[in-house]
């Protein structure tokens, strides 16, 4: 075991897969300079052919990744900041998500798109977007939301070996975290949620940075005699709905903590699925703790209260348990 940070784990996953498979390469803005902290040492080890700095041409280079994938390469595309996907959105939706299907399986697109989410740090509305739900609605994309350093490593390795387009949302709030990570190689399969805290009174599902609020709320709830079960889905497409349903069958109560904006959030989708399939287990309404449906303001005085917090999750859980 070695203590590694979230960024180190992302770096290690890419390095190991690039060492293993010469068709894996990295492209994106400033990747050779390690501007974001996740690509340290890769340009030095693999050279400018396999660690390619792109111009600021998101549609151009994301589509180019698709073309390279069609002819046998396995690109990792670093979008730098998640909303930089927007200029490339047609390539993501019309080409990357749809080519395997449109051409009846004659091709497939083994692309990994890494998108870091920056929010709650004063970057204002355009840079603070968390387009997880937006992307999740598109058929043909797999969506991964690693919420711990060790998960980031195992999930990104699986993503790189997957023959389909995978988008990995890296939540900046985890960058400072470190934990012990196995030295031996490991992969985490998609569609397997993690029970981060076992409990019996209320199920709390956390999405990306929402996992942190869920875990902190869980500690406070335990101090108040409420046993919370915290679930981290780890991947949203595919989603391990069975893990959530099993937990709700035990607790009868569900809170979903999601950093996305409220409307059509990931939380909304999970809530609807559980309402349909787990209704008979429920002892009260499903509660979503999300980001309000407003653009993100610059001033920390206005921004800070907007994202899901342990306070809000605790309050929701206590209300449910008190019914």
């Amino acid at each position, binding site marked *: 075991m070695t203590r590694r940070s979230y960024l180190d784990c992302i770096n290690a996953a890419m390095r190991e897969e690039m060492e293993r498979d010469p068709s894996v390469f990295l492209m994106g803005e400033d990747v050779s300079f390690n501007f974001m902290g996740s690509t340290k040492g890769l340009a030095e080890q693999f050279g400018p052919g396999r660690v390619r700095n792109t111009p600021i041409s998101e549609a151009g280079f994301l589509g180019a990744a*698709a*073309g390279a994938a069609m002819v046998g390469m396995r690109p990792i595309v670093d979008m730098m900041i998640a909303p930089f996907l927007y200029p490339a959105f047609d*390539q993501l939706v019309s080409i990357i998500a749809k080519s395997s299907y*449109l051409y*009846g399986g004659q091709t497939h697109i083994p692309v990994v798109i890494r998108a870091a989410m920056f929010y709650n740090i004063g970057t204002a509305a355009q840079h603070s977007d968390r387009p997880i739900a937006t992307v999740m609605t598109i058929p043909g994309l*797999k969506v991964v939301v690693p919420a711990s350093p060790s998960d980031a490593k195992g999930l990104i390795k699986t993503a790189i070996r997957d023959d389909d387009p995978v988008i990995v949302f890296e939540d900046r709030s985890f960058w400072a975290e470190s934990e012990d990570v196995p030295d031996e190689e490991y992969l985490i399969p998609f569609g397997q949620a993690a029970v981060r805290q076992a409990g019996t009174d209320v199920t709390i599902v956390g999405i990306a940075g929402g996992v942190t609020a869920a875990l902190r709320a869980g500690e406070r709830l335990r101090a108040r005699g409420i046993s919370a079960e915290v679930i981290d889905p780890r991947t949203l497409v595919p989603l391990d709905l069975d893990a959530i349903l099993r937990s709700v069958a035990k607790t009868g109560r569900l809170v979903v903590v999601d950093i996305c904006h409220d409307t059509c959030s990931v939380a909304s989708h999970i809530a609807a699925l559980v309402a349909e399939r787990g209704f008979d287990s429920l002892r009260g309404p499903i509660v979503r703790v999300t980001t309000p449906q407003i653009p993100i303001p610059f001033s920390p005085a206005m921004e800070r209260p907007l994202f899901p917090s342990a306070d809000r999750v605790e309050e929701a859980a206590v209300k449910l348990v008190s019914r």
Partner: protein
Amino acid sequence: MSADEPDTGLLAECLRRMYRIRIFDTTLSQRDDLPSVGHMSVGMEASIVGACLALEPGDYMVGTHRSHGHPIGKGAEIGPLAAELLGKKTGINQGKGGSMHLSDFSVGSLGETSIVGSGLPVATGAALGITMKGESRVCLCFFGDGAANEGTFHESLNLASIWHLPVVYVCENNQYGELTAHADACAVRRIADRAAGYSMPGETVDGMDVTAVYAAVRVAVDRARAGSGPSLVETDTYRFFGHAGGPDRGELYRTRAEVDRWRERDPIGLLRARLLGSGMSEPDLDAIEAAERVRVDQAWKFALASPLPDPQDAYLHVFADPIPLS
């Protein structure tokens, strides 16, 4: 055989494929059993075939919503293409893509994509993949005059230029982006003039003359294969049919006189005249046409006799590594 003077054997193959496209699209436009209207390439055959035959069989190609002619030009079997247009299970895309998305990966067609301009980055990336694998292939990208005003055109040419990629961009300028005249939509008269802005060669050629298209694209393909990077070739061409559907009936945005003027330079007629001058006879040329008519006829018969997909087949091919839908 020099790049400037393709031999009679190659020109005869050009005629075969041009007739194949002409008859396929014409018979298609006369059918009433298609799930959707198609975008036909009648009139644009020289622009397509001259470019495709400048490629080697192992080269790649990306194209547009006007998707029938390109795979045919690249040598695809037309039975599966006809079946695809009828939504049959034996279609090249197993009924998943239809008229705007024909393909044939076995002949290097990486699929035709129907969002205008969306294929340019893909072709650029295929060329990147070729380079990274150390192969000597080239990727050709067909797009229209309308796409030359999309952001993806500019991003793709810039990227191909800085990375010296083996891609040949072929702009089929049929004078209209849907219904809007090129002159009203584009800041430059000659799209090829934009090549200079991306530090690559650019040339405009007569798109009704298959030998002119072949010559220009062949130079560009050879250049790319030699490692000298991308080029832009603009072909001046014209579609005799409407944007979609059958023959032009004196539409809103162009005149009968204009259509008739371009029809005087029908690319098949021009090639026939050239081949007669090279020693082929009228019966030889008619035999080529007749053989293609038989081929197209067989393609429609195959398509008609083929089964429809099962509705459950809609759930196939979303992913190469399938996952459950939740």
